[in-house]
Each structure stands twice: as C-alpha cells, then as structure tokens.
C-alpha cells in the first residue's frame, strides 16, 4: 500500500490543477521542518507535527507536535486509525482521506484566491497589532456618544422624561409639589419666570403693588418675584435679604418719583430716626406718624391715665399684702406676635383695683364696661339686696319672688314705687362714688352728663381709650430676642425712663441710636449684621386676610392650572 499526497490547486482563472506525490514509505513525517516527508511551510505547523504510518489495523496517525493540534473529523485526537472520508485538520491545514485497495490518498485543497487572502492577512498582521484594528475609530465612538447624550439629556427631557436632569438644584420644600412641572413656573421657553406664575397660587397685596405703580411710569424699576425669591437652591426657600438690594431703590427713593414722601435710607447707619404712631387728638382714633427727633413735642394723647412710676415702686399694697410689680405683670408677652397682649383691665388691673362700690358689700363689684352697664349693674345689685332684705323681714309681701312654675302676684303700685326710689337712690350714690372718686376717674377721663336722677341710665361718660399696642407698625421687633435687656433701657424718653415716668403722655420709645449700639450694616464692626428685612417686611402684610385665604379645592384648581 502506498501513501499519496494530492494537492488540488484552485487557480485564480477558475481552473483546477492536481499535483500528486507518491511516497513509498510506511511511515511519513508531516511538519514544517526540513526533515519532514511532507513539508508544510505554514507558520502554525510544528517542525515535526504528525506521523502517518501503515499499521496492521490500517493507516494510523499520531500527533507528535506536543501542541494537541490534531483533529480527525473535528475530534481532538493524539492517535487514530483513519478510514476513507475522514477529515484531518492540524496547523490550519485540512486533509481528506481517500482509501482504496492499494493506496491511501491524502487530499489537500488549496485555492490561489485563498492564499492571496492569507498573504493579505500576513500584511495585515501589523495592523492587527494596533488598537485601530480592534476598536472602532475614536471619532466614531465620540459621534455615538454625542447622539446618546443628546437623546438622554436633550430629547427625553423635552418630551417629559428625565426632566430632573435639567434642574440646576433641588427646589425649595414649599414648592416640592410642583417640582416635576417645570412649566408651572417656566411658562414660556427662553424667558424668565413671570410673576403671573407665582400669582396662580400666591396672593400678595403689598409692596409689590406700590412697586407696580412705580413701574407703570418707570419701567426700569420693574421687579419680578423671582428676583428676590430664587429657586433651585436647596430645600430652604432662598429669599434675597441683602441691604444693598433695598438700598438700590431706598438709598435715593425720592428721586424715583416726586410723589414719594418717605425718607432716603442709604444704609443702617444712615437710617432716619424712628417714627411712632400717635393719636391726632385725645378723642380721635386716627393716628399720625411723628419722628422721635423732636421728643419735646411728642405726647401720647390716649385718654387714659397711668403712672408707671407709682406702679413700679416697691412694696405696693397688693390684694395679698405687700407686692412689687414687674413690667411683665401687666405687659404680658404674646408668643404669637413676639410682642405683648393688649392691656386688659380684668387680667392686668382688677386684682389690685377691684370695682367694688359699697363698703357694706365688700364682695360686690361692677363690670368694667360701658357706663350704662355699670349703672344697670349697680341698680340690679341694689334691687337684689333690697328684695332680699324685705323678704327676710317679711314686712311687705306686695312684691314676691317668682318661683319656677308658680304664679306672680301683682305688687301694689305704691309699694313698688317706694322700693324703686330707694334702690335708685342707692345706685346713684354708688355711681357717683365710683366714677368721680374711687375708681373710673383714676384712669379715665370722666364727664358728668345732664341726666335726670330718675332716668334709667348712667349720669357719666368715659372717653374711650385705645391703648397703643404697636407704636411702630411698620417695623418687626422681637421682644424675646431682646430678653436680656432691661425694659427701661429702651422704653424711655430723653428725660425719664419708664420707671420714672409719671405721665401717660410720655412717649416711652427709644430711638435708632439704641439699636445702633448693637446692630450695624455688617458684622465687621463687631456688631450684629442687620439687613433691612430683619425689621422690615418687603411684603407689607405678613400673612393674608381671611378673605384672601383659599380652600383646598381652590388650591387644587390652581395646581390643575399649573398642568397637574
């Protein structure tokens, strides 16, 4: 039996050529080495790759390369007996076994086209050692990246997905419910947030209106809500507080509009002296603002009399013996306003000044009210007493008490008239004592009216006082924040402190100089940095009047308008 090696060469012109080599040996070495019987020049073939030998069992094949690179019918083998039709593969070469009775043919197909390709591949081997061969062009990668980033961060946000990626920061806590609705505030593209977007939910009737009036003929002064109320700066609402912002208008406010009467405020050091609200006259409820500059001309005309000096003196004769009053015993702090509750007679005065009217009746008092109420109370109380005394003596039964469910016996007219006259006499006497000597006139301005003795109404009138509770309604002042300071440090005139003040006419409010002891424009002066908004509100009204408030349903409608 002979072994033949046949190479079928496919030429480029389509023809095939057959070259056969006969080997009259029983053992053939196949390899790249010069010693091999069948020399294969391919790089992947080992010097001595395999041995083909005739054995008793047939034609055997053995892998001698030590590389485990021999496949028979695609199965990795180290040694095998071949049969006709087997396909042998090693080192990138393929043989087909063709057996006949007297020879064994190893057929190898070669194609010139394929070999050209192998050649090309060889020249490409340099290329294959570069990144360019492995990866796409980096500009192409960049182009794909540009497309991806525009899709994710431009087109998706435009159609409503991944909108948050455009947000420059978290929205303030109070606006969280509209965080996802960019258009709620940014109503039109490429233009700044307009006030009408704010006004969909918020109602403001204040400074901004004055400003709007001003801006109607000075368009350069037009301000938007968003200029002071920044957003996307975190959970806490950002509110513009710098004094410079206020001073940009108020520094020379009179130049903005000839109708403006308020004074210029360039900064805190240049702040004009405070003004207090004083009543125009003692019988007027109208107030007028007066500067503390001319203190000698200032008088509190409220028709009430209070001697602070007397009240703050030590060891007063109180209801429970000797007592010393503190300011806060009458001026009770109001945590809600950080100021004080209005003075109330019942709460603040009555324990020392009971409205008793008859020594014989130490427990009996009249109400702190209108003179007629006082008179009615006196009359009713004397009537009660009179009736109670007569019943106990049992001398006159013409007037009897009415028992529930019982009958009323008609009194004789003579008896009633007698009793009424006595009661009225007692009431009138007590009334005069109260109004002119023991009680009312101590604090109030009392005038006697021309009323007949027997008429059923009070003979006295009292000028109704409105005790000022807020001397500077345009300013915010926190009493708790100044808790460490004695009251008389600020509540004084230029002559006396509140502890020495004997007249209610004293305007016991201190001027800006006292504030400037601790407060300044900036902390660099070793003082508390104080912006305008520490004492002033840009929006005149803090909070809304009841009529401006909304129901949840209304707010929901507003939110719906915002596109939710």
């Amino acid at each position, binding site marked *: 039996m002979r072994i033949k090696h046949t190479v079928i060469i496919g030429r480029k012109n389509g023809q095939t050529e057959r070259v056969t080599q006969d080997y009259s040996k029983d053992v053939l070495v196949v390899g790249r080495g010069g010693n091999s019987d069948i020399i294969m020049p391919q790089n992947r073939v080992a*010097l001595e790759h395999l041995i083909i030998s005739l054995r008793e069992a047939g034609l055997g094949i053995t892998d001698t390369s*030590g590389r485990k690179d021999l496949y028979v019918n695609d199965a990795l083998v180290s040694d095998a007996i071949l049969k006709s039709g087997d396909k042998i593969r090693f080192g990138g070469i393929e043989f087909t076994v063709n057996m006949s009775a007297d020879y064994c043919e190893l057929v190898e197909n070669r194609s010139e086209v394929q070999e050209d390709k192998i050649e090309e591949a060889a020249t490409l*081997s340099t290329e294959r*050692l570069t990144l360019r061969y492995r990866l796409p062009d980096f500009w192409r990668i960049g182009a794909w990246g540009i497309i991806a980033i525009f899709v994710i*961060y431009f087109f998706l946000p435009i159609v409503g997905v991944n909108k948050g990626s455009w947000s420059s920061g978290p929205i303030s806590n109070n606006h969280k419910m509209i965080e996802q609705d960019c258009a709620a505030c940014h109503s039109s593209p490429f233009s700044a947030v307009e006030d009408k977007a704010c006004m969909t939910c918020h109602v403001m009737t204040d400074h901004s209106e004055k400003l709007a009036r001003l801006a109607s003929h000075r368009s350069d002064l037009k301000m938007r809500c968003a200029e002071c109320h920044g957003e996307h700066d975190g959970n806490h609402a950002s509110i513009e507080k710098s004094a410079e912002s206020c001073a940009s208008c108020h520094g020379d406010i009179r130049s903005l509009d000839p109708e403006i009467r308020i004074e210029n405020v360039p900064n805190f050091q240049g702040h004009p002296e405070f003004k207090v609200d004083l009543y125009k006259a003692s019988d007027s409820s109208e107030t007028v603002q007066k500067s503390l500059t001319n203190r000698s001309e200032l008088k509190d005309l409220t028709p009430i009399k209070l001697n602070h000096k007397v009240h703050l003196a030590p060891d007063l004769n109180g209801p429970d013996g000797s007592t010393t009053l503190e300011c806060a015993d009458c001026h009770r702090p109001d945590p809600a306003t950080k100021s004080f509750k209005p003075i109330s007679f019942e709460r603040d005065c009555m324990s020392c000044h009971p409205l008793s009217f008859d020594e014989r009746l130490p427990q009996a008092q009249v109400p702190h009210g209108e003179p007629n109420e006082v008179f009615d109370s006196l009359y009713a109380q004397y009537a009660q007493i009179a009736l109670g005394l007569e019943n106990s003596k049992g001398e006159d039964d013409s007037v009897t008490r009415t028992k529930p469910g019982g009958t009323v016996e008609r009194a004789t007219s003579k008896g009633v008239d007698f009793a009424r006259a006595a009661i009225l006499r007692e009431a009138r006497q007590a009334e005069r004592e109260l109004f002119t000597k023991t009680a009312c006139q101590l604090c109030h301005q009392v005038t006697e009216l021309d009323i007949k003795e027997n008429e059923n109404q009070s003979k006295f009138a009292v000028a109704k006082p409105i005790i000022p509770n807020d001397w500077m309604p345009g300013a915010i002042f926190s009493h708790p924040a100044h808790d460490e300071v004695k009251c008389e440090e600020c509540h004084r005139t230029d002559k006396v402190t509140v502890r020495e003040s004997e007249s209610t006419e004293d305007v016991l409010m201190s001027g800006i100089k006292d504030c400037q002891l601790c407060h300044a424009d900036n902390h660099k002066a070793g003082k508390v940095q104080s912006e305008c908004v520490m004492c002033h509100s840009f929006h005149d009204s803090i909070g809304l009047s009841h009529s401006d408030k909304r129901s949840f349903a209304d707010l929901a409608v507003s939110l719906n308008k915002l596109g939710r």
Partner: protein
Amino acid sequence: MREETFFNYRNFKWMWVHLIALTVILIIYALHDPVGEPAGDTWLGYFLGVLAAAGMTGLMWYAIRKRAYYSSQTTLKGALAVHLWLGLSLSLLVPLHCGFSFGMNVHTLAYVLMMLTILTGVWGAIIYLSMAKEIGSHRGKGSVKELLEKLTLTSTAADSLTLKKSATFISLAQKLDFNFHPTLRDAVFEGEILALDQSVLARQIAELNTDEQSDAVKFIGIVSRKIELINLIRQEVKAQFWMKAWLYLHVPLACLSYAALLIHIISVFYYR
C-alpha cells in the same frame, strides 16, 4: 539644552499666560459679592461661562488645527501647548463659573465629562513626554512591519537548518523553537521573552553528533535572534498601544463633554 516640547514650549509661555489670567479671575471672584450665592447667573457667572465655553471650543479646534498640515499661522507645537494649559485652566474656571455648586444634573455632568477629558489629556501628555525617548530609541531598528518580516525570515532560516538531521537534533530544535503569533494583548500585558540559557544549551550541544554541533550553534543563534526580534516587536507595539490608548478615551470624552456643554447652555436659557 533641553529639547523643547509642547510642555515647555517657549519657556512655559502659555503656562504663564493662563496662570496670570486665572489669578486675575480668582481676584475678581474673591471681590465679587453677588446677590445670593455665587452662581452661573450672576454677571461674573455669565462672563466666566462665556469664557469657559469659548475655551472648550478652542480645545475642540485643536482637532482641526492638528490636521491643517499647511497652516502657517501657528506651529502645531504651540497649538498643543495652548491646548494643554487651556484645558488645565478650565478645570478651575468652570467651578468658578458655577460658584462651586454641583448636583445630579446635566450641568454637573458636563463638568464631570470635561474633567475626565482633561484627566485623560493629562495622561496622554505624560505618556508622550515619558515615551518620547523610548520611541526615539526604536527608530532605526525598523517598523513593526519590517520587524515582522525579519522574524519570518529567521523562522525560515531555522526551519532550513533542521533538514536531514538526527532525531536528537530535531528533539533539541523542537524544544527550542516556537511559533510566534504576535498579539496586541501579549505585547501590552506580557513581559519580554527570556533569552536562552547558554550553559544548559552547551551541555545539550555536547550530546549531539559532532557534525551537527555547528548547525546546532547556528540554530540557537537564530532562535536567540528571533527572541530578540519578538521582544523588539512587543516593545514597539506596546509603545504604540499606549500612545493611542488614551486617545480612545480622550476624544470620545471630549465629544461627550462638548455635547453636554451645548445641552447645558440650551437648557439654562430654555428654563431661565
């Protein structure tokens, strides 16, 4: 005299230009007291934003300048020097533009991408500056292609020596010879192939027939030459790999960063 590179171009001229400009900007930033926090929407914020966007455009322009081979207005080395120092300056200019406020959004994404581009650029600059000498030392020894061709020739020479040799010779040749398939991965990550151990070989040669011994010495010489060539190829491929690798990050990141910049500009003006 030290060789002038894009790094020390004209005695660091462009480094000083950018340092001075940054110092001036830092002083203005320190003196600037805007309403609220410093941010991109104050006058200084807008100014620095415009400056940074122009800077980014200038950096992208380098890609065009690099390919404008007939440009005579500027030298490529000078343009690269500006590219380097301008890029480094932007890493500070942009935080000043936004007042150091960052978040999870496309605006900060633009900054992050820009920073990654700058960092990969720094990496590239370091590679170029450190490899300049190494690349130079390869010159004259041939390109990868030439080295590969030489390698094929030596392989063939080795093969031809095995013609009609004894089994002992073949077995020695089998042990020494190897097929070399150059791959990028091996070149970058594998170390050099060790030279043959001459003392061991001498013993093995002694075991051969005397008439085969001279061929064996030749064979060993050829294999040693092959190892030398392979190591040269690996070095060259490795150097070329690192000189290109950073660009595969730098260029796409630059594209992404410029795209993010455009989206940043559009979005901040869309929702003013």
